[in-house]
């Protein structure tokens, strides 16, 4: 019992203690890392448990961020109200936009989902709404850095353990069934489109929350909420952390984002070094950190028993 509970307790305690050990600058970085962690988690869930490779992370962030920011700027609602509304509203919008794409399979779904954030940018600039290219500044922020950190850490813990539980419930088994063999799911009387919509909604809830949080973290919203980084970086985090482990991508994001910050001193070389780390993982540990650690940990258990 303790053997299985240990890693979980370690992870939760680690996340809770982490802010205390950091200075102001790195505490800020941790908040950004948390956003990527949530995106990586939602990407991993869709890709490994539903079979949808969704590169629309930037859209989740953008829809969530704009909803929350606009409500705050135009109506003066407090972030405590706008973040929950934006989480739900952003998720509903993202899902509605993705529904027509659900008929597409594999790479085609990935490509279209990647294009959606770009379209959103064009629409906002063309129509000139929501501050157009300049964005909207002076949004309300959360009270202080401690609240900011613990809100995102709390969200990570809730989302992580929530999804872990979900994938073993009946609905989660149906999602995994769709990934393994969608024809058999249809032959079993289950509409795969209906369940894919549910899965996309769950994933976009997580992403939209991250977006809403981000706009109040910066106190600003603009077109960079639709930046490609939000679609691409989570994949890197998944590769590093271990696809399909759920916790791996979270840890991957918490390692990669600060690493990218630490390399800032190298200027343009930063991206090269960043890529080298990734290529190293793909070449030498393609299973990712978590899969590797998990295996080692279970070997340790057997060794202990014998």
């Amino acid at each position, binding site marked *: 019992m303790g053997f299985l509970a240990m890693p979980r307790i370690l992870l939760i305690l680690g996340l809770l203690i982490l802010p205390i050990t950091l200075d102001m600058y790195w505490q800020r970085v941790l908040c950004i890392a948390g956003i990527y962690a949530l995106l990586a988690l939602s990407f991993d869930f869709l890709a490994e448990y539903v079979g949808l490779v969704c590169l629309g992370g930037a859209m989740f962030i953008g829809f969530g961020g704009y909803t929350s920011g606009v409500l705050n700027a135009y109506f003066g609602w407090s972030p405590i109200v706008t973040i929950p509304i934006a989480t739900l509203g952003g998720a509903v919008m993202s899902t509605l936009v993705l529904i027509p794409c659900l008929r597409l399979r594999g790479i085609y779904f990935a490509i279209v989902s990647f294009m959606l954030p770009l379209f959103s940018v064009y629409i906002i600039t063309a129509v000139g709404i929501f501050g157009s290219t300049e964005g909207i500044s002076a949004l309300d922020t959360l009270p202080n850095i401690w609240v900011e950190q613990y809100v995102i850490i709390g969200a990570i813990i809730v989302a992580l353990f929530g999804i872990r539980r979900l994938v073993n419930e*009946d609905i989660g088994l149906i999602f995994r069934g769709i990934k393994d063999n969608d024809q*058999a*799911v249809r*032959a079993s009387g289950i509409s795969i489109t209906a369940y894919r919509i549910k899965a996309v909604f769950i994933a976009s809830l997580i992403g939209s929350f991250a977006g809403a949080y981000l706009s109040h973290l910066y106190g600003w919203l603009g077109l960079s909420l639709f930046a490609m980084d939000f679609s691409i970086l989570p994949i890197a985090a998944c590769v590093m952390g271990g696809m399909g482990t759920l916790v791996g991508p979270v840890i991957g994001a918490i390692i990669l984002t600060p690493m990218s910050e630490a390399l800032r001193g190298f200027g343009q070389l930063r991206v090269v070094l960043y890529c080298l780390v990734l290529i190293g993982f793909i070449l030498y540990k393609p299973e990712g950190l978590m899969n590797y650690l998990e295996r080692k940990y279970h070997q340790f258990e057997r060794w202990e028993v014998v």
Partner: protein
Amino acid sequence: MEKEPVLQVNGLSKAFGGVQAVLDVDFTLFKGEILGIIGPNGAGKTTLVNLVTGFVKPDAGSVLFKGKNIKGLQPHKIANLGLVRTFQVMRPYHSLAAFKNLIVPLNSPRVRRTSGGKLGDTDLVAIDILEQIGFERDARVPYKIASSLPLGYLKRLELARCIALRPEVILCDEVFSGLSMSEIASMIPLLEKLQMEGITIMMIEHRLRELFRLADRVVVINFGKKIAEGIPKEVMEREDVKAAYLGTGKRK
């Protein structure tokens, strides 16, 4: 026996590009019977199942299930009506335990409706179904990961997936293929039991001897067309059927 048709297929046709896979096929499935569909390789038997269950859209013709036209309906809607199929090439949800494979059909609208929301723990229901179909609970077979099961169990798992849906009609696409004689021998009573329970079965099969032990009637298909229909023994005596299976013997 009162003959009540459950599935009526009329003039069903489908072409893939220039290949006429199924052409103008009619047959009727009566309640409670076992109908065999036989024919040489590539005759269009599996396409016929795909057409009837909505996985492939027919070019022409009609499919009536209990008097209702189901042509053009989506596969999951047809399955929810009680017309279910097995797949020739089984791809179970390989990362899941065998009994977890049945969680999917047990969550279908049909099962929810027929059980009136009183299904209870789906895991237990799934294990019960597997036990009935020969997954020895004492040997913990239902708990094994699906990808580790031998072919015989996979074929049964495929059948169990259908049974979990509480079907009225099962279309079996080569459930015997690839099985040993003893595995087939243990499978036959299962199908007989299903028939006793009032389930109508249509079987596509290459193992004629075993099929003829079960089937009340057979339909022979060749090059997408129905060439014969009737009682197994009589059908196999016909010259055109022999020719379809064995060739005409004429040489240039």
